[in-house]
């Protein structure tokens, strides 16, 4: 079975994520299918999703117009970078009045917390997966993390990458853009999907619904 991984494709650095995913799968010697996701129907085809960098307000609006938010809340595994991390967060500071999120991971994020584009920066950072060159573009800051959230990277108390699994739903959030410089986090995400969802005997041994992707939408 070839698991299908979707990339939310309305807007943002979609291609960069797709390339990083394909390379990560090659490095791990596993075979995956990478799909563009733009509708609720597309969501039903996938086992896991990446929400790319972009404008969180735009991404959220387009998802809402397609009636995708509830289905996205139930996708087994989601990896979000920058705007994608904002989409995953339980609460958002400095959000626009009608901005909603998926509330999948117990963190609070502050949008554009570093300032405007002239404050954007790149920096070599240490992570639990190894050193990476991190690109922060109008990046959010993770201002609070819940007690069950595992931290994968931080500098000076500032959490940069974290993950949480709540019941059968796994989320991985990064404030910067690993997709621009490394495949380490995409490999990690694929390993997590394998660990939680596909290494299970027969693909349906642990409460994972039957079906080719191991995932049925709630809606």
């Amino acid at each position, binding site marked *: 079975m070839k698991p299908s991984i979707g990339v939310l494709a309305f*807007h943002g*650095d*979609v291609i960069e994520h797709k390339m990083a995913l394909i390379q990560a799968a090659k490095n791990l010697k596993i075979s995956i299918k990478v799909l563009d996701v733009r509708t609720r129907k597309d969501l039903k085809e996938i086992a896991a999703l990446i929400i790319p960098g972009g404008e969180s307000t*735009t991404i959220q609006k*387009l998802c809402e117009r397609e009636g995708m938010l509830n289905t996205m809340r139930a996708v087994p595994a989601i990896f979000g970078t920058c705007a994608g991390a904002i989409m995953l967060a339980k609460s958002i500071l400095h959000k626009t009045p009608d901005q909603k999120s998926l509330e999948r991971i117990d963190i609070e994020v502050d949008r554009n917390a570093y300032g*405007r*584009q002239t404050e954007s*920066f790149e920096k070599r950072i240490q992570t639990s997966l190894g050193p990476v060159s991190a690109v922060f*573009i109008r990046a959010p800051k993770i201002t609070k993390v819940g007690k069950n959230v595992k931290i994968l990277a931080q500098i000076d108390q500032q959490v940069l990458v974290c993950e949480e699994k709540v019941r059968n739903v796994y989320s991985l959030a990064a404030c910067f853009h690993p997709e621009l410089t490394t495949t380490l986090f995409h490999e990690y995400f694929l390993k997590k999907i394998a660990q939680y969802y596909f290494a299970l005997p027969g693909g349906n041994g642990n409460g994972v619904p039957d079906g080719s992707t191991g995932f049925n939408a709630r809606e």
Partner: protein
Amino acid sequence: MPSMKKGTFPIKSGLAQMLKGGVIMDVVNAEQAKIAQDAGAVAVMALERVPADIRADGGVARMSDPVKIKEIQEAVTIPVMAKCRIGHFVEAQVLEALEVDFIDESEVLTPADEQYHIDKTKFTVPFVCGARDLGEALRRLTEGAAMIRTKGEAGSGNIVEAVRHIRAVNDGISEMQILFTKKNTKALKQKAIEYRVPIDLVLQTAKLGRLPVVNFAAGGIATPADAALCMQLGVDGVFVGSGIFKSTDPKRRARAIVDSVAHFNDPKKIATASQNLGEAMKGQEIASLETKLAARGI
């Protein structure tokens, strides 16, 4: 944080990458900026007058009043871009001091220098520049632009020039790709001389089979179908200038263009987006225009 680097090319072109698949809208005040953000724009371009009015009013068009730009920055959370005149590096310095997120060195404003564009490598803020063909696009990249857009014919409400420019860039790249596949280094070197750009940039473009930076369409987009046409022709996103706020129902039209770009390959969704939008901006035949803005700064 120690050892952090700002204003590097990856940081500048990175913001453009995050805007891909999006719509950037011209706005002249906070109210319009909010309409743009609510519609789902990925950024706004802060202006004193939209191109159609610049065209109608005549006279010298300059950078906006900083008060206008600040008002718009206060009103929205999405990136705010602003235009400076071609070659007017002091206007660019002012815009950088105002912390705009992107500067458009634009032919829509009256050029300040007929020979030189701004040396954009000296700035921390990224620049977008217009181009009618591959040579212009590559020259702007050599000067440090982090994003390219077609010039189209701003304020005309007529898509024909934008289409011409998208095709010219695409054709230029195909030609280079063929030379590259044939390993015809001599002809590629000749191209570099013709375009007045380094051979490395020509080779990089030929190898990639596309511009090495994000490329948007601009100039004359007035309907959701116009925007999707540009997307299907291969651009990464669109700028809409006069097309929204010169129409009879800007709120609806803004949202419809965003939806149409998000689903540019889905004619049913474009059809739905195109319904009941009121009148589009009137638009003009290109031959009837007194000033062709696209001929500025080549």
